[in-house]
């Protein structure tokens, strides 16, 4: 039984590849399938190779899969670039109006020419070659062209019925042409039988943005940067309806300081960025820590260092999130594993920031942020709002003038209540200098030590449901270990290994700071070999584990840093090398 199907469309950037993929993906999602889409693109506007991969399945899937069954190629580069991902017996549809395709190597992969551009011209214009391609795929997948009407209407309805009609016409012509000339089918998998509680198609960036709104964030200050800008787009749609504000700052330094200013004044605020912007925010991160001002930063990581690969994924900002900024501050670093967690953790980040009065960093990445996929539901009912310790007007009124101690270091848990500007009798100065209780800078030795201890104490007894998850059998002596966005592909790897008789557990971090050492040690019980899978070149998570929990001799690494997301195959290959299956099982 076919359970999944890999489809890819590729061509030059600026040719409408994204919208082709988007229309096909949304149509399949609405038919009830589970879809995962990954966009491969380059840091330029026109030209260069781009492709849009869609994996379709009858069950929830967490990555875009390694295999391509059907490839739509608008140029030879697309065929060359993706040739090795084609399955045996796979099908390439190429635009015969534009070029004559050749096989890069002799393989059992079939090339079928369809004059996509010419058919589009007949239907009304060459721009609709993408719709012709969708029609061809619909024929191969044995869908009906009518299945696509709602999506085409959504996509083009604003431009008028004529545009909708001509796009559908192009789609129908592609469909008819293929049936007429070729007798090749790749039936889509059977539709899932059990209805999902709520079948949603959403990206990590959208989930983060929605989570921010749900978590009470009402001010986003950000500077455009791939792959984080979509967070801005989403909140721009919704914040104004809820009395919120989006500021396009002049740079990331301004953005993060704006977020600090708004939080100081009592409005939940955040900034969203990627590596280069995150680096610019390091000094302000320290200000938030020192002045005990809540702050939420979302870092949608991309390949570094410096400008790096702006349109490619990586998990290499972990060290910076955990250690970045001079001096020492308390902070929380969340690493959501799924889009559902992108939503919930971002919402929760605002509670944590206000409860502990410190910066909270949410680490996503390009793969998580820009990929869209079908999920069963979002945990909206799990969202709550906890503003942390805010001193009441009544409590302030009972105090004498200048008696309110914003930074009272004698508070047992280290968390002294905040007063917000405008409150009577709550005046104080929030500051990055070392300070006394009311926020006047002082340099005496005792105050320094007391205030450092106060800030550090806030997270000593940190207790939260985020942390470490364990999947697979408790007794397994082998473990796959990861953080953040790789959870889905690691789960698949674990399942494949289990089917091969290799018992593996999967330990995954959804928070790395405060480091969940106790939970991790419990998960490691009985584990003799751990393979830490991460998308960076130096094994940042592995080193973090070794620093906070040990297990030096039991850890090995599976690293990837070429810019592409890690594939199932790569994990399996490395796991089979590292796990001494013959000996242990």
């Amino acid at each position, binding site marked *: 039984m076919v359970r999944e199907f890999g489809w890819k469309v590729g061509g030059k950037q600026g040719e409408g590849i994204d919208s082709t993929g988007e229309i096909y993906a949304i149509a399949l999602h609405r038919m009830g399938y589970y879809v995962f889409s990954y966009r491969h693109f380059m840091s330029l506007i026109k030209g260069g190779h781009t492709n849009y991969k869609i994996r379709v399945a009858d069950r929830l899937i967490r990555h875009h899969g390694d295999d391509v069954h059907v490839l739509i190629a608008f140029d030879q580069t697309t065929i060359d670039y993706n040739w090795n991902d084609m399955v045996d017996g796979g099908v390439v549809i190429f635009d015969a109006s534009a070029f004559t395709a050749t096989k890069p190597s002799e393989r059992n992969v079939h090339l079928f020419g369809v004059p996509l551009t010419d058919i589009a011209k007949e239907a009304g214009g060459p721009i609709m070659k993408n719709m012709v391609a969708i029609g061809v795929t619909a024929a191969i997948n044995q869908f009906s062209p009518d299945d696509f009407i709602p999506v085409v209407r959504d996509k083009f309805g604003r431009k008028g019925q004529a545009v909708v009609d001509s796009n559908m016409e192009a789609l129908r012509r592609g469909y008819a042409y293929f049936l007429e000339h070729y007798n090749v089918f790749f039936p889509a998998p059977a539709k899932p039988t059990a209805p999902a509680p709520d079948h949603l198609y959403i990206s990590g960036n959208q989930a983060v943005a929605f989570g921010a709104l749900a978590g009470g964030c009402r*001010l986003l200050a950000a500077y455009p940067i791939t792959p984080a800008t979509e967070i801005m787009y989403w909140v721009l749609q919704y*914040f104004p309806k809820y009395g919120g*504000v989006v*500021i396009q700052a002049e740079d990331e330094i301004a953005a993060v*300081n704006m977020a600090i*200013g708004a939080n100081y004044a009592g409005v939940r605020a955040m900034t969203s960025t990627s590596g280069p912007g995150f680096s610019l925010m390091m000094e302000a991160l320290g200000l938030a820590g020192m002045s005990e001002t809540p702050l939420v930063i979302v870092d949608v990581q991309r390949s570094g260092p410096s400008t790096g690969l702006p349109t490619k994924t990586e998990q290499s900002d972990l060290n910076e999130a955990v250690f970045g900024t001079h001096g020492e501050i308390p902070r929380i670093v969340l690493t959501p594993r799924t889009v559902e967690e992108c939503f919930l953790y971002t919402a929760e980040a605002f509670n944590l920031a206000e409860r502990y009065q410190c910066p909270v960093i949410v680490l996503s990445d390009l793969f998580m942020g820009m990929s869209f996929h079908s999920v069963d539901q979002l945990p*909206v009912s799990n969202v709550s709002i906890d503003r942390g310790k805010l001193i009441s007007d009544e409590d302030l009124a009972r105090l004498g003038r200048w008696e309110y101690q914003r930074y009272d270091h004698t508070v047992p848990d280290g968390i002294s209540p905040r007063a917000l500007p405008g409150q009577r009798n709550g005046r104080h100065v929030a*500051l990055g200098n070392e300070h006394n209780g009311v926020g*006047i800078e002082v340099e005496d030795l005792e105050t320094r030590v007391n205030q450092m201890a106060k800030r550090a104490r806030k997270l000593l007894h940190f207790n939260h449901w985020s942390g470490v998850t364990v999947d697979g059998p408790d007794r397994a002596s082998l473990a796959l270990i990861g953080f953040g966005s790789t959870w889905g592909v690691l789960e698949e790897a674990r399942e494949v290994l289990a089917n091969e008789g290799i018992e593996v557990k999967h330990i995954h971090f959804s928070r790395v700071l405060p480091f969940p050492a106790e939970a991790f040690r419990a998960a490691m019980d009985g584990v003799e070999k751990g393979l830490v899978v991460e998308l960076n070149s130096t094994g940042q998570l592995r080193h973090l584990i070794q620093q906070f929990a040990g297990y030096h001799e039991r850890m090995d690494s599976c690293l990837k840093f070429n810019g592409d997301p890690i594939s199932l195959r790569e994990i399996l290959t490395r796991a089979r090398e590292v796990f001494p299956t013959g000996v242990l099982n």
Partner: protein
Amino acid sequence: MPTLQDFQTERATWCPGCGDFGVLNAMQKAVINLGIEPDDIVVVSGIGCSGKMAQHFGAYGLHSLHGRSLPTAQAVKLANRKLTVFAAGGDGDGFGIGMGHFIHAIRRNIDITYIVMDNHIYGLTTGQASPTSDEGAKTKTSPYGTVEAPIAPLQLALAQNCGFVAQGFSGNIKQLTTLIEKAVLHKGFSFVNVFSPCVTFNKVNTYEFYKSHLVNLDEDPSYDPHDRVQALRRVAEAGNVVVGLIYEDPHRQSFEESLHGYPETPMVHNDLSLGEADYETILASFR
């Protein structure tokens, strides 16, 4: 009505005779004259001698990072539009490390007042050249005299069509108080540059120097502070050594007035929770 007593804090740590005392005094008098309660004021400062303003002023304060008072202050204002918000800094803070924010704060036009204590020197770090140091100024980092041309703050602000531009002098607190009052009343971003002599590290741009050289435009009946081109010319002719209300455009729309969806009530009072209908609408957009 608030009095000076209400603003009293610990004794300021500036050097005796520092121009910043005058600025502090004028800022406090201005808000007292306007009847603004100290609990409704936030002073956001940067780093440097001027940065101490947040602590000495006696209202709510946010002593931010070097050069970053402006972005921080703008967001404080957006978060609670009922507050009177000052950004305060020096010439190094504002025209060196923080210069980018200055131009963009003018563009954005959020209703805050920016006070720069311009002493042409880095004081707290004990006497290095600043962005407004006169060409040829001998300092610890320019022993043979600076070779860089000084920043022209007023002309920059005017060129960017800042809605309120004034320049004052710490030695004339009465005039400075009036200028700050007007700046606070101005709807939108207002900029007051103040010659605030450093008595310890700058022996050139002294009280005496300003007293004998300053051209006071407020005393010139022919001067029209609503004529931007004339303002640019007069400031240039005087080599920036002018005081008074340089320019005001009372009609320029502020960010708050222009921004789609910006609420009338302070954002800080927003209801943060989403209702079931809100969730339903948003979730439907993902189906």
